[in-house]
């Protein structure tokens, strides 16, 4: 029998395999000139610029719903007005403009669009044939020079399934075979002809790093690293090189008249941008002790880790992570599948939240990503079971404003507040019930998914002719 636990991505095995605090000041500056170099100007900071344009939208009022805002207590009998791509008003007494489409939300729930900080959609597309395995450049332990967006296939049929699950923003990461996997990309879950058409305008890049078993397994017989100490030596040497590179470039840029520019190096360019605070570090790491070592490395070289990913032992050091201002992109209940995942517990998210950490429900899985609300519901229940009273108003943050912060986008998305992007989900019931569905999903005020209308259900090129039914209606 072929049992189904594939583990492809958590493993990120071989190349072919499937395998707190306020944002730093640099954030604000970077949002103005994104993504990129802030104070300095590299040769071309944004060679693959976003071409995303919001889809046509109608002024829409959803009324009489229970609204989980992720910015405070729920609004019962609430209304929310979406206009010109933004949230124009929210409250219990919102008047509908004459031209507004009015949707009765009686008995239903409204939340911000959900955000997944850990996706491999488009880089490990479906069907999972070898030709679609584009997530791990497992040729050497440091591939900081690759960019995930160059692997993303916009016609991956997994994208519309995510949208139907109420997911509106994804961070697509390279896999975890390498110490430095490369740049991530933040996407809106929208149909487009190119990845540039999906790129979230203004989003910073992320850098994928990986601890522990994966790099040492993949390279153990290929020149190393073969051990965890080899892993750490690999990170430190790369940061030493990156710091020298950054100094050379910053010196040149301070006065370009004084000579030729240094020779560009794609990998060091990415690492130097981390040192300048312009790229956010997303670090795959399971064990508490290894996370502590990664924190010391970050201190040694003067960069910040934005979020640990997987962190099945985050609960053991939740106090430290909260103090360091490092978010935890965590599973609700995965664990046990390898030694470094052995100590996974169901209350990880809840304990992390209770300690003051920014808890994030992440997926690393195309199935789990469609049901981030269900995963959060599990984590909340596990908290309740040990006496941690996580309210739904708090838990919704694990899917919305906390991941928005991890991506440096919390000023644009992740909560339902006037002026923010109108990324909104209307749920058939309490989204933490197993029986709830996303009924309608809006991105920048445009309704891009309607469960009751097959014409409002995006089908990728791949599905045409191949797939007779995409699911969603019943």
């Amino acid at each position, binding site marked *: 029998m072929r049992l189904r636990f594939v583990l492809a991505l958590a493993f990120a095995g071989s190349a072919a395999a499937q395998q707190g605090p306020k944002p730093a000041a640099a954030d604000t500056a970077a949002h103005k000139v994104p993504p990129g170099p802030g104070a300095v100007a590299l040769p071309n900071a944004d060679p693959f610029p976003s071409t995303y344009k919001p889809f046509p939208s109608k002024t829409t009022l959803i009324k009489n719903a229970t609204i989980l805002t992720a910015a405070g207590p729920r609004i019962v009998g609430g209304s929310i007005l979406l206009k010109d791509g933004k949230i124009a008003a929210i409250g219990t007494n919102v008047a509908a403009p004459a031209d507004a489409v009015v949707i009765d939300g009686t008995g239903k729930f409204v939340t911000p669009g959900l955000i997944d900080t850990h996706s491999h959609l488009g880089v490990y597309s479906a069907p999972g044939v070898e030709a679609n395995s584009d997530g791990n450049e497992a040729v050497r332990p440091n591939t900081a020079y690759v960019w995930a967006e160059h692997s993303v296939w916009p016609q991956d049929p997994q994208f519309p399934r995510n949208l139907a699950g109420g997911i509106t923003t994804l961070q697509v990461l390279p896999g975890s075979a390498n110490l430095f996997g490369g740049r991530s990309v933040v996407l809106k879950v929208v149909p487009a002809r190119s990845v540039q058409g999906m790129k979230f305008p203004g989003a910073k890049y992320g850098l994928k790093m990986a601890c522990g078993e994966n790099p040492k397994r993949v390279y153990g017989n290929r020149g190393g690293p073969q051990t965890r100490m080899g892993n750490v030596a690999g990170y430190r040497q790369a940061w030493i090189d990156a710091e020298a590179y950054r100094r050379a470039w910053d010196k040149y840029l301070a006065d370009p008249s004084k000579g030729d520019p240094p020779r560009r190096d794609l990998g060091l360019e990415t690492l130097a941008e981390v040192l300048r605070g312009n790229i956010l570090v997303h670090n795959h790491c399971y064990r508490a002790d290894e996370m502590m070592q990664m924190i010391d490395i970050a201190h040694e070289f003067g960069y910040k880790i934005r979020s640990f990913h997987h962190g099945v032992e985050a609960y053991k050091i939740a106090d430290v992570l909260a103090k360091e201002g490092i978010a935890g992109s965590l599973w609700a209940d995965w664990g046990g599948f*390898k030694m470094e995942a052995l100590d996974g517990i169901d209350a990880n998210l809840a304990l992390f939240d209770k300690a003051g950490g920014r808890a994030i429900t992440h997926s690393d899985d195309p199935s789990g990503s469609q049901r981030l609300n269900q995963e959060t519901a599990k984590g909340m229940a596990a908290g309740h079971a040990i006496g941690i009273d996580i309210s739904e108003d708090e838990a919704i943050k694990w899917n919305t404003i906390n991941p928005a912060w991890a991506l440096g986008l919390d000023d644009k998305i992740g909560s339902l507040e006037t002026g923010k992007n109108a990324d909104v989900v209307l749920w058939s019931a309490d989204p933490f019930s197993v029986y709830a569905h996303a009924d309608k999903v809006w991105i920048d005020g445009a309704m891009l998914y309607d469960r009751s209308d097959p014409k409002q259900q995006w089908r990728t090129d791949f599905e045409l002719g191949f797939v007779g039914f995409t699911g969603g209606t019943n």
Partner: protein
Amino acid sequence: MRTARMALLGTLVAAAAIALPAQTIAITGGTVYPVSGPAIKNGTVLIRNGKVAAVGANVAIPADAKKVDATGKWVTPGFINSTSVLGLVDVGFGGGSNESSAKGTDDVSASFQPWLAYNPLNVLIPAAREQGITGVVIWPNGNLVGGQGAFVDLFPGSLPDVLVKAPVGMAVDFEEDRDAGVQARGELIGKLAGLLEETRAYMANKAAYTAGKTRAFDYGRANLEAMIPVVTGRLPMVMSVNRAADIEEALRFAREQKVRVILYGASEGWMVAGKIAAAKVPVLTGAMNNIPRDFTELNSRQENAALLRKAGVTVVLVGNAGGGDEENFNVRNVRFEAGNAVGYGMTWDDALAAVTTNAAQVFGVADKVGALKVGMEGNVVVWDGDPFEFATRAVHVYVRGVEYTQPSRKDLLTERYKNLPPDYFKN
């Protein structure tokens, strides 16, 4: 002091290995879902000598019974996870023991009985049981014919005690050519037919085989012996298969070969649901698989389980969405497959049957487990709400009439790190 604690812990572990005496237990006041009949409001379940002794609205409670107040709660049979490797795998990858796959000969390991390595003290068992799983079916992994499955009740005891039935089926891969050591589906089917033919030839000429007077066989005696119950129709083949056309071929194969089959996966089963129902072939499938993750699963959809049921197929819900390890670490999550099945069109009662009595029926143990009927094993769960909801917890779990309260390893870790920094001597 430390030594004393260590000793205490040792006692705990040792105690877990000894079957506890079953008390007489009366679970009263809850809504009882016996599965074999309609729900009973304010019902009583009486367990005596490890078996269900009475179920109903008016049950006389013996004076010696331990009363468990289930007012406001839901009482069901223990849930069953039908596609598991629980007790066979300590750590799936990168170390630890994994006793779930055999080497085999020419991709056939029909004689493989993975339960011979079943460890009733595997640390993942309490984590499954404390959230309402009282029985699992454990299977081998890999190969064209992977080996035999066994139905196990989740309590600490010796193998003969915990086995409900073995074997319950023969695992056959009808789809993954690589696992079968072939390159094409047609080649795979031919290879499987060849094995069945050889088994029949062997069965008819055992004496000649022993005397070395038969033609050369591709497969050894152990594998051929193991296949005899399959060709005689006593043991079903559990066939992994997903594409609609391949499902039809599997049904045809079963008819022609006169073997019993159970389909596993069946992502596109909804497209041929009527044919599956007409063949009276049961299906093991999940409710959260909607990704065309292979060219054989292009038409996967979440309504699959509900549509199969609607067509009259006996559906057993299992975890097969691809992530989250519902086969080992997260065995208990099969109840959320049931919830999602309801979300996508199955009736609640059908979903409950799909994680209880249907599994028992399909594997031939419906007289023992999967429902609350007099004489059946006292495998009972008391839930504090709808068992398919995330917010619900199992508050009492009985296996053969015994409530095991031993904390899981997860519980112990949680207790140790609930308050930081941890006190390594206290917890």
